[in-house]
Structures are given as C-alpha cells and as structure tokens.
C-alpha cells in the first residue's frame, strides 16, 4: 500500500467513524433522560403540571399569560400607530397605511357582506377576533420562556391553544351573535340564535383543536434531535402562519355569517310590523 492509498483509506475510515458517532448521538432516546413524550403531550393539552403564577390569581395555565402578553403587545403597537401613524395618513396611502387599511377593510368587508343590514359592531368584533387569533398564534413562534410553578421554565403557547381560551373565544363569539339576534329581531332573534346551541361548542373546540394540533406537532418535532434541523423552519413557521390565517378567517367568517343570519329581518316580519303600526 503506497502512501497515497494509505492516506485515502484513513480519510474514508475517519469519515465513516464520524457518521456512526453522529448517528449514535442523534438517536439517543430522550425519554431516558427527560420527561417522556406522553407526559409532555398530555401537559401541552391539559396543563396539569406546568402552571404559571399570575398576579394574585395564583397558578394559571401559561396561555393566560400569553393572552395578556399578546394584548399588551397589540396595545403598544396600536398606541404607536394611533399617535404616530394615523395623524399622518394621506389620501394616497403609503405601504404601512395600505396594510392597516387592508386589515380594517377586510374585516369590515366581511361584516358588510355577511350582515349588510347591521354591521357596525360586528365589523369591530371580527377585526378584534381576527387580530387576536392571528397575533396570538404567531406569538407561539417567539417561544418566550416564563418560570413555571414546578421550578422549570415553560415556553408560552398560543393563547387559544388552551381549552379555557378557546371556550372564552367561542362563547364570546356566540354572545356577539346572540346580541345581533336581539338587536335585529328581539325575542325571535334569541330563539334563532339558541336554535344553533351547538355553535359555541363547535367554535371553541374547532379553535382549540386546530391550534393545539399545531402546538403538538411542533412539540413532537422539537422533541427528537434528529428532526430538529431544517424541518422546524417549515413545520413551526409555515404551519403556524398557515393555521393562524386559516383559523382567524374561519372564526370571523362563521361569526359574521351567523350574525347576519340571526339579525336579518325577514320581509314577512317587516310586513307584519308595518301592518301593526298602521
């Protein structure tokens, strides 16, 4: 074996050894060292162990902290926009003004198209709900760490990836629909709204399921070291953005749709009302 061949053999041998070593390190079973995946997934859903102290309310699910953090971020942004951007608005909008006008215009258009007869409050509500769902879901990407009650640190999830947050959003949306029914049709509007009694449950659990599934997939991906390279860029960022947009659109669209349906005065009712007036 000449010197050149020996050198080539040593390089190949070293590369093979390195690959095997990397493989051995990457395939370490994390369950042997950390919490098992089952515990992590269950805790991500139920938050039975990982809680966070919140003011004088005691330990709460981390999503509550997320919710208030998101509100704070939105508040600061809105304040800056109100003070510095809106007074400088022009008839021919720039990029940022166009973005804001588009955001308001999209939700306002959604309210107008679904409930043309009564849409002032609905437009403001769907704008809030859409913004909250979108920003809240994107907030998950920041992975802000807060101290948990069990001594460790926990990354703040999306506010609506928590069952309580999702129920709140579903019930609040249902209340908005109910208020539209009352404002538009009085007692008949209440009956029309109560007819869809499953709506708050379906809205809550759709939101919870969609956002939680995103969180669980992300947890799974990050749990194993082998899937922690490149893949999270797509899974975490792209999927989160996608379901942030989809869920914001679905909930606002459903709310606007049902609001328009229950608050619409039917021609027969109008005729009766006109006759009664006469």
């Amino acid at each position: 074996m000449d010197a050149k061949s020996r050198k080539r053999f040593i390089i190949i041998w070293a590369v093979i050894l390195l690959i095997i070593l990397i493989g051995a390190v990457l395939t370490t079973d994390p369950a042997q060292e950390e919490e098992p995946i089952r515990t992590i997934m269950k805790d991500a859903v139920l938050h039975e162990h990982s809680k966070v102290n919140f003011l004088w309310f005691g330990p709460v699910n981390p999503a509550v902290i997320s919710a208030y953090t998101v509100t704070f971020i939105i508040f600061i942004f809105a304040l800056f926009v109100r003070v510095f951007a809106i007074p400088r608005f022009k008839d021919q909008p720039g990029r940022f003004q166009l973005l804001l006008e588009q955001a308001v215009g999209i939700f306002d258009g959604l309210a107008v198209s679904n409930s043309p007869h009564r849409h002032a409050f609905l437009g403001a509500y769907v704008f809030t709900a859409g913004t909250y769902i979108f920003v809240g879901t994107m907030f998950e990407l920041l992975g802000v760490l807060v101290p948990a009650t069990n001594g460790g640190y926990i990354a703040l999830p999306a506010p609506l990836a928590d069952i309580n947050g999702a129920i709140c959003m579903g019930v609040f949306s249902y209340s908005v629909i109910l208020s539209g029914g009352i404002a538009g049709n009085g007692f008949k509007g209440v009956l029309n709204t109560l007819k869809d009694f499953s709506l708050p449950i379906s809205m809550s659990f759709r939101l919870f399921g969609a956002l939680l599934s995103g969180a669980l997939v992300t947890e799974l991906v990050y749990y194993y070291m082998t899937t922690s390279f490149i893949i999270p860029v797509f899974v975490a960022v792209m999927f989160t953005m996608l379901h942030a947009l989809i869920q914001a659109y679905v909930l606002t669209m459903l709310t606007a749709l049902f609001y328009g349906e229950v608050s619409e005065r039917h021609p027969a009712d109008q005729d009766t009302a006109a006759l009664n007036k006469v």
Partner: protein
Amino acid sequence: MPLNIDVQQILLHLFNLVLLFGILYILLYKPVHDFMDKREEEYRKRDRDTKDALSDAEKLKGEYESKLAEAEKETALERARTSAAAEAEREKIISDAHNRASSIVEDARDKAQKEHDRLIARAQTEIADYVAMAAEKIVMKDEGLHDDFDSFFEKVQDTDRNSDNG
C-alpha cells in the same frame, strides 16, 4: 373540571378579550375606519359636485342653445321683414319709375302731337301759299287752266290723306 376547564381562567381570558376589543376599537379600528369613511365621503362629494357641475353646464348649454335658436329665429324674422320692406320699396320705385316713364312718354307724345300739329298747320299755310302762288301763275298764263286746276286739287287731297295716316 374535566379537560382542566377552569371558570376563573375563562373569565380571565374574557376580561382580556373585552379589554383587547376596547383597545383595538378605540386606537386602531375606529380611527382607521373613520379616516377611510371620511376619504370615501370626500370622494363621493367630489363625484357629486362634478356631476352637479356637469348637470349645470348641460343646463346652461341647453339655455344657450335655446337662446341661440330664438336669436336665429328672430334674425330670420327680421331678415324676412327687411326683405319684405325692401321688396315693397323696390316695387314702389319701379312703380314710380313706370309712372314717370309714362308721364315722360305722355309728355313726349303731347309734344310730338303739338309739333305735328304745328308742322301740319305750317304745311297747310305753306301749301295755301304755294296754291295761291300756283293759282296766280296759272291765272296769269291762262293755258290748260282746266286740267291744271283738277290735278292741283288731286294733289291737295293726296297730301291731306298722307298727313292723316302719318
């Protein structure tokens, strides 16, 4: 509760959501919406003003066209009136000219008649003189008296006839 549902946390989320609704409505949604409404109203107003101005212009154009038509009608009427007056004046001038021409012709005829009469009278006088002279000559010579006398009278008669025809 099952699934770790907690009413207190739901209320905390609800508080947060209502707070966020107020913040977004006051700081973002309403000002942007108001600005968009105001701009839309401004554009609507401009559109309305433009349409009004266009309508006014159309109305003005109609009025001008109507005035123009009226003026044209008046001009045509005036032209007809002037033309009729000119025609009457022309007729009058022609008639006067005819009258004058007739009067001139009449005068000329009178003058011609008078001249004619005067010439006839003079001719008659001259003829009488000539006859007297001729008679004197004949009487004085006394030859062929009878024939000459007859031919003399025939000539006199021919002369009279010719002057009557002329």
